[in-house]
């Protein structure tokens, strides 16, 4: 924090010097300007580093799907996972064949590849 304040003061001072010497000594003005830019750059970088530390990406909830199948017929449905679902949970009557054999056969995360 203290370093950043000192650097800001240096940056403003050298910027002022750069502007005042610009018309008389271009080389010196360039040098002062470089110091000012470097100082500002360092402060900005420091601020961003701290901010990044606080900011944690809060990822959206994962898209988890449940596969519902009937072993008696070809019925297959993929639905969003809901709390209470589990693999081999019996769901009752199949809407297609009318036999009470509908169950969840798999639950998976459907999304981009993670590390």
């Amino acid at each position: 924090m203290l370093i950043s304040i000192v650097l800001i003061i240096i940056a403003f001072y050298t910027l002022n010097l750069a502007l005042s010497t610009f018309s008389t000594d271009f080389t010196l003005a360039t040098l002062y300007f470089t110091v000012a830019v470097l100082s500002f750059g360092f402060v900005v970088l420091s601020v961003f580093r701290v901010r990044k530390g606080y900011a944690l990406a809060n990822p959206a909830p994962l898209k988890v799907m449940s596969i519902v199948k009937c072993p008696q017929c070809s019925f297959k449905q993929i639905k969003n996972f809901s709390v209470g679902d589990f693999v081999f949970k019996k769901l009752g009557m199949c809407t297609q064949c009318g036999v009470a054999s509908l169950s969840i056969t798999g639950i998976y995360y459907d999304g981009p590849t993670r590390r």
Partner: protein
Amino acid sequence: MLDIFGPLGGIFNNLGTVTQLIFTLLFVLLFFGFGQKLQMRQYMWDIDRGLRRLDVIRTQAKDLALKTIKEIGKPTVDPLPQLNVLMESFLITPVDMDPSGIVSKFDHLLDVRDVKFKEDVQKMAPSADSAQVNNLENLVEASWALNTIFRIIRHFYLLGKKTNSIFIIIQLQALLPMIMQEAEAYLGAGRAFAEGQPIGDGLGALVASKLMKDKAQRKVEKDVIVAETTLEDRRIIALKAEGPGGNVGKPGDAIQSLLQENNGKVSMIVMVDAALKFEGETTGEISEGIGAAIGGIGTERFKIEQEATKQHIPVYAVIVKESILEAITPMKKEILEAGDKVIERIKNLIVERSKPGDTVIIAGIGNTIGIGQ
């Protein structure tokens, strides 16, 4: 006035050269005199940033645990003080100066810890059923792990800062990316545990549950379900932890008791588990090997190895590769699809390594959260 410097006066006449000289000197002083300090400062920034992220992650996990306990458990009193006590709980490992019998000591301690943890969670969530208690226990354990990681990292960071030890700081900074990855994985695991979704580690349990589906099941040992079936004319004894609550059971004890029950009749044991892949390997890839495929601190593996050695039974392992993040977050499609391929590999293995009519134990290892039987 510059004449007093003699021939050097010319140099001082040139302000650009003077400035250049000053900057060069400053550079030399800064990088040779304070180079290590600057580097340490840079590392400390990185650790500080990581520590702040860890703090946010552990707070998120704790909030999620608290919210889920309140939603599912419907407690009459505020569970936060009890949760805070659990967050700071610890396990004192047995003395290893005389290692003889240490496995049973470890096993006993882990049993006591498990029972206490479960009872404490049950007290916090009185309305939760047994499967929900198991899920909540897993969730609280994930929060506990995050809290512990944060405390350890903070300890070494502050110690490094206090003692100005660059070696502590360098080690911490080098390990930080892996620690952050693990912490984020635990947070993902917390979300899966809160909703009871199957995780990547449940692959073994999934394979076993596919084998034992619609077969007569019985409970053996602690939280382990066993069912008999046939595969390629072999008698198969499939086992897994009791689901669908978050549970790993005690497969070591179960295999030991099954081997004793079928004294001399079991011709081979096949263990199915998820295993950590190396970077660059594909998720869902299947590998076969020899030995007891089971994680943990080794107590369960010890029991299996001991009994299998006693009865001269070969132990084979079929593993599915995945990363640490994939192992403890909701099961990926590739891992789910690997389940059927694993069954094919097991069929090939038992055809090659056993005779028709033989008895084979197939153990599905892993957390069975979100997987019934």
